[in-house]
């Protein structure tokens, strides 16, 4: 491909995505369907604008799936896994096995051979993580029992893809012969050595992740150059992919393992938010390629077969899910939701299908048929959610979204502290002493490292970034404390939070009066001037040393404090009307104003109620 065509292709892909994805999201179809529709639009079925074959593009875009598994691995904190262990293994395992056998059984009855039938069963067993999780979160079903069940099943499916990728080649009619595309030195070794090498590689990833990558990331992070950190993240994933292909294992498995190993590290959020845009774009490209490869001629020629297949697969999957839900004691309405939510075939089917086609496990015309069916089943999912809300929930619905078993959810921390320097750590320690759960974000990797060692839950990253805040649970937290040093960054954070997490209450630290004004203009109500309380305590002690009674000095400081807070608000309003040019002149002018108005303050002396002069004057002289 020469440069000109490359740019042209890029233009076509990007503009199709940019045009169709927002439209699809608006229409409630979700971004994945948007990408698929974009693919259909530019593919041979409609405008026919692409010269590359969809399957070639898909090959490149599969790297996005590797990244997706890396991210899934990063999200699998061992503690979260442990809490959900029963439903993950029980519900998820049962769903996968029953679905595979049900579908494969039907396929055999329809006259296919056993190997092909099993392959088809595996391919359609998984559901769409991307579509379902996004919908659960958007509609607030995530915390219901059905939502938790769906999450567990999806998690298990994500993990199950890895053994599936390993088993699928065994189902190939040509199995036993090494694939020409994977001709490398490992596969030429005897079987026992191959196994040893593979196990060794997995162990190596664990050890490298724990003892090499983390210190390395620390060094990179301390260089404070953002893009180098991003480059390191990419390097990590590319390196693993290459290593795994060399030893003949799935790169997705390697990436997943690396993700799990790094899930407990302080760089979890940062790694995730660095890889996220690449993952998103490549997955987008992947779905576009799916759209391009949908064989519309097939659908037009055999509409009954295609739609029959879709209906059949979805019905079988829903039935299996319903039985699993029944077994795990979901209410009827929850169970119906659970069954409908997961009965589509997921994006992994595309990966498995293209893999199966390359490996000649499934004949090309069957893959075409299945590709089309999978895409249609995904397109139907938003419609099923609508069906549930409009019809089923009305009739059976007794459970409000939000109802859930108390221990079913790994609870997110209610407080996020951004910046854990002297200021932040004082608040943090205070809250921790009262067992208030806090998630801490900090940009200083040395400090993060140290604080983690002494048992704080601290993450490394730039807290003004939306994706990092999201990763830290800003959607579910109640309060965020902005305690970072940099006033500019604080304002950026305020903007980001107000825009993307409007429900989150913001408490913000301020140094100077100027910062305070800026923050007031940004709509902040809870502003904490770091100098105010310390300065007043100094004032109290000064008065004490000069012979004033301690309590009187203390009361005077209290009065001054509430007066000063009020004065700040008043002056902020005045200041807004006047543009200052010279900041130092501004400071002096303002100080003058403040000192002038200090004189009008309610007497700093003793409270009138404790004053006896009036009483003495009125008392009858005896």
């Amino acid at each position, binding site marked *: 491909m020469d440069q000109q065509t490359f740019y042209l292709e890029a233009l076509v892909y990007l503009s199709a995505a940019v045009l169709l994805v927002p439209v699809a999201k608006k229409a409630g179809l979700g971004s994945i369907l948007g990408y698929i529709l974009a693919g259909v639009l530019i593919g041979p079925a409609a405008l026919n604008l692409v010269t590359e074959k969809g399957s070639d593009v898909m090959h490149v875009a599969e790297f996005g799936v590797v990244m997706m598994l890396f991210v899934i691995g990063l999200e699998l904190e061992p503690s979260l896994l442990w809490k959900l262990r029963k439903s993950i293994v029980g519900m998820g395992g049962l769903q996968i096995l029953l679905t595979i056998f049900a579908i494969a059984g039907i396929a055999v009855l329809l006259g296919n051979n056993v190997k092909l039938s099993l392959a088809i069963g595996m391919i359609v067993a998984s559901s769409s993580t991307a579509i379902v999780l996004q919908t659960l979160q958007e509609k607030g079903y995530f915390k219901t029992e059905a939502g938790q069940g769906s999450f567990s099943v999806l998690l298990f499916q994500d993990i199950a893809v890895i053994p599936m990728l390993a088993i699928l080649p065994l189902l190939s009619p040509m199995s036993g012969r090494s694939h020409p595309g994977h001709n490398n030195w490992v596969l030429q070794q005897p079987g026992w050595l191959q196994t040893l090498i593979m196990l060794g590689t997995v162990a190596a990833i664990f050890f490298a992740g724990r003892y090499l990558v983390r210190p390395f990331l620390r060094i990179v992070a301390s260089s404070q150059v953002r893009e180098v950190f991003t480059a390191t993240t990419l390097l990590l994933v590319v390196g693993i992919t290459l290593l795994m292909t060399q030893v003949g294992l799935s790169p997705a498995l390697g990436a997943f393992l690396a993700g799990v190993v790094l899930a407990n590290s302080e760089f979890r959020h940062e790694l995730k938010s660095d890889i996220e845009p690449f993952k998103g774009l490549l997955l987008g490209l992947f779905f576009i390629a799916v759209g391009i490869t949908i064989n519309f001629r097939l659908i037009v020629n055999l509409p009954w077969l295609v739609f029959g297949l879709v209906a059949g697969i979805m019905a079988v999957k829903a039935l299996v899910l319903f039985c699993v839900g029944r077994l795990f004691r979901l209410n009827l309405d929850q169970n119906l939701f659970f069954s409908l939510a997961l009965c589509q075939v997921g994006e992994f089917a595309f990966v498995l299908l293209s893999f199966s086609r390359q490996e000649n496990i499934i004949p090309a015309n069957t893959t075409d048929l299945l590709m089309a069916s999978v895409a249609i089943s995904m397109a139907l999912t938003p419609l099923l959610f609508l069906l549930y809300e409009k019809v089923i929930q009305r009739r059976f619905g007794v459970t409000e979204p939000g109802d859930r078993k108390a221990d079913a959810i790994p609870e997110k921390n209610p407080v996020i502290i951004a910046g854990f320097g002297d200021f932040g750590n004082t608040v943090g320690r205070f809250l921790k002493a009262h067992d208030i759960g806090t998630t801490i974000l900090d940009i200083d990797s040395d400090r993060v490292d140290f604080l983690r060692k002494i048992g704080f839950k601290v993450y490394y990253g730039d807290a003004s970034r939306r994706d990092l805040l999201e990763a830290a649970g800003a959607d579910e937290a109640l309060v965020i404390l902005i305690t970072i040093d940099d006033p500019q960054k604080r304002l950026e954070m305020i903007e980001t939070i107000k825009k993307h997490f409007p429900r989150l209450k913001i408490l913000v630290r301020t140094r100077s009066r100027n910062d305070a004004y800026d923050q007031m203009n940004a709509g902040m109500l809870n502003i904490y001037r770091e100098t105010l309380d310390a300065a007043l305590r100094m004032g109290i002690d000064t008065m004490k040393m000069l012979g004033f009674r301690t309590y009187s000095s203390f*009361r005077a400081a*209290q*009065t001054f404090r*509430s007066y000063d807070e009020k004065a700040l608000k008043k002056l902020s309003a005045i200041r807004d009307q006047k543009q200052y040019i010279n900041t130092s002149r501004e400071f002096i002018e303002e100080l003058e104003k403040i000192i002038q108005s200090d004189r009008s303050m309610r007497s700093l002396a003793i*409270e*009138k*109620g*404790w*004053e006896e002069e*009036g*009483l003495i004057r*009125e008392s009858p002289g005896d």
Partner: protein
Amino acid sequence: MARILVLFAHPTLEKSRVHSQLIRQIPIQQNITFHDLYETYPDFHIDIDREQQLLLSHDIIIFQHPLYWYSGPPIIKQWLDLVLEHGWAYGANGTALTGKVTMQAVTSGGSFDSYNPGGKHKQKLPEYLAPFENTVKICNMDYWPPFVVHGTHRISDTDIQLHATQFKQMLLSLAADRISAAERAGCFYMNDLFPIPSTIQS
């Protein structure tokens, strides 16, 4: 319609059994203001101007608090000391509160019978409230009989609910001026006007 101000003082409301239920029953309506002193002034730094304005804009002031050592929690005393200023609330020119009414809604661990010459506390409960009563009278206000819940250490949840309902009935009646002077004069506690089974009162 009388405008009612409930000045509430409880340093550990989260642990309270009786007061937490009483305040739940305070009707939410235009002419009843609930003012939580410990929540507003954790540092005891009472905003005198604001408190005086509140007094001026209400007709009946109810101090609601538990009894600690025969008196209110310290913020009540702080409030009295600072807000009822000489020359404003009392003294030659202190007439701001003239004609208003004050009463107390208190809880006590001791039973009704223990507040008796023969009992542990030696005197009737209203006699312990004498300093409040006189303070109120010096400020040119009427002092009405208190609303009392006795025996709060051992009281059952049902009895708490009955008292809470009684409290609500009293507030509604006060707000609607439904209690005659004769009825008021005839009662020992304000509770007597809204009777509940007598076994509970002991």
